């Protein structure tokens, strides 16, 4: 009898070992890390001095926003690839953004310096790519086999630098060093937010400092925002947003693997594949000669500009009825996403609330719905 039961031993031991390994390996990856203590200011400086300019990594994004599950094809069905008119295009863009915000996604990110980067969204049996190389930006969608080419104005970087320099010259003199800038930034945050350095952790196999921003006000849906900063390179590796009354992160995006070697340069030379539909698009020029036109546009729309009430975490954005596209109400997505509430329709998630008042105004904020309804009155 005993040797019979002995022969059943492997049937118990092997599954037990496998289960232990399955449980223990992730625990080991999250083993305690102890880094030299740093103040929030020092961590900000670490980010500012970040030396990582070229890297390749895998990014995982997950969200648990409590968004109602929607049939995303409803908003996209009328958008034939490559021939979307602007109205339909915005509906398509809306569903793309919603799709990226809900559920979980995996990306591969390649950065080869300031002017070269590539992001791959890994879909099931498909992929979407964004490739930036110098003045060329390519978007490729394997599902529709369509590529979009944007040419950035050659002086875009120069213009941006000039504007940045201009801004910097307007800043008070005491902000000339990063250290002062970090101090000023923390000072600005101080009334609304408690900034601290959380327990050291491990992200993508690297030890990180966790910069934790906690709202001091209570009337916001955000419980805390933590940013994991690589202790060696200063590169932010993960952002986690926690919502009030929810233990799972409402939104999290971060590296699951990262390699600080420069990726193969051939990755950034994108040539649209034979047979793909190619759309050429030109970026609006940002240089000064067109700035006048933009200013004119803005003045015409001045009455329609969104109004922000409140400050910090409990700020509410109000979009006047005239600025809301008339087509918005017709989009089947809106009906699916929102629920009828007192005085209009509302979309409530664990982080963000949007209230569509019945008079056409739209209110949004990281606050409970009741506050948006109060603001609408």
């Amino acid at each position, binding site marked *: 009898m005993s040797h019979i039961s002995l022969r059943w031993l492997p*049937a118990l031991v*092997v599954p037990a070992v496998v289960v232990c390994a399955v449980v223990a390996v992730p625990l080991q990856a999250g083993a305690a890390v102890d880094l030299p203590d740093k103040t929030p200011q020092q961590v900000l400086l670490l980010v500012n001095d970040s030396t990582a300019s070229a890297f390749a990594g895998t990014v995982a994004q997950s969200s648990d926003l409590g968004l109602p599950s929607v049939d995303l094809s409803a908003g996209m069905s009328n958008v034939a690839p490559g021939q979307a008119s602007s109205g339909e295009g915005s509906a398509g863009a809306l569903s793309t953004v919603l799709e990226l915000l809900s559920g979980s996604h995996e990306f591969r990110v390649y950065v080869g310096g300031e002017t070269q980067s590539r992001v791959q969204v890994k879909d099931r049996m498909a*992929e979407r*790519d964004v490739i930036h190389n110098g003045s060329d930006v390519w978007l490729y969608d394997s599902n529709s086999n369509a590529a979009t080419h944007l040419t950035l104005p050659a002086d875009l970087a120069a213009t941006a630098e000039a504007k940045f320099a201009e801004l910097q010259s307007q800043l008070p003199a005491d902000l000339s060093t990063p250290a002062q800038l970090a101090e000023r930034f923390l000072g600005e945050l101080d009334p609304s937010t408690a900034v601290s350095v959380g327990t050291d952790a491990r992200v993508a196999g690297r030890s990180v400092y966790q910069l934790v921003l906690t709202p001091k006000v209570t009337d916001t849906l955000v419980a805390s925002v933590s940013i994991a900063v690589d202790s060696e390179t200063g590169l932010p590796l993960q952002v986690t947003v926690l919502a009030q009354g929810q233990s799972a992160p409402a939104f999290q995006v971060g590296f699951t*693997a990262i390699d600080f070697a420069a990726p193969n340069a051939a*990755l950034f030379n994108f040539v649209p594949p034979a047979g793909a539909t190619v759309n050429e698009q030109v970026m609006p020029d940002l240089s000064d000669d067109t700035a006048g036109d933009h200013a004119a546009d803005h003045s015409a729309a001045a009455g329609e500009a969104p109004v922000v009430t409140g400050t910090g975490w409990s700020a509410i954005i109000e979009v006047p009825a005239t600025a809301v596209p008339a087509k918005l109400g017709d989009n089947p997505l809106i009906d699916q996403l929102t629920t009828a509430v007192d005085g209009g329709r509302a979309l409530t998630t664990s982080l963000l609330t949007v209230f569509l008042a019945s008079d056409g105004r739209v209110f949004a904020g990281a606050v409970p719905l009741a506050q948006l309804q109060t603001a609408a009155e």
Partner: protein
Amino acid sequence: MSSSDVPPPENDVNPTHRGVGWDLLGSEIMVLFRRRRTWAMLVALALIPILLAVAVRLSSSTLDPGEGPPFLDRVSQNGLFVGFTAMVVAIPLFLPLTIGVVAGDTIAGEAGLGTLRYLLVAPAGRVRLLLVKYTGAALFCLVASLTLTVSGALIGAALFPVGPVTLLSGDTVSVTESLLRSLLVAAYVTVSLLGLSMIGLFISTLTDVPVGAMAATIVVSVVAQILDIIPQLSWLHPWLFSHYWLGFADLLRQPLDLGSFGQNAVVQVCYAAVFGSLAYSRFVTKDILS
């Protein structure tokens, strides 16, 4: 010691000694691949890409991008996509079906025919017999996925133009590299089926009725795939043996992403270990009456 070394007979006092395993394996493989049933299943698998390619060839309407099964719209431009489409189509049902038949038959088939006790009369040992049967089933997984790949490539090349292949990332690779990637996909699919093969072997030790073991193995694979689409069980999904079955898409990205190959292999090894030990314990304690 290399296992091909044949020990001198005078040392062969232990009845479960190595040495005869290779003969047993050879005869097992011969029996498996001489069976008309095995050939029928391989021909059925080979017909999948042929049917797909002929249907696309004869149809006058062209598919819009993204319509139909993955890659089907590309087939008319490049015949090398036939194999990939066939693989996507075959993985959920056809391949598990054939694996279920082969793995479910391993022990129960011999028991049903009354040949199991003769196999164990020879100084082979029950452990050796299990290993040989499992190796045979695993070899069938490899042959089945290669059949799909090869017949897909041949029919694609026969009916459609063949040229550089566009990967999911939009990059284009040469015909040679795309064939290498096809072989890698076949390897991925083979590995994907190893866990199910071991489950089939275990179920096969439970019964003397081969049809029952085959059906149960196929049911297990269907149940795993149903569990995989229930969102409430998302914590379980990474540990289902069928979860990474369609993950070979990662082999069609540029640069090559071997991440899911590794994860898939780990899951399959876990299943093979757990069900292998169960099959061992069941089989060595079993009363062999037939």
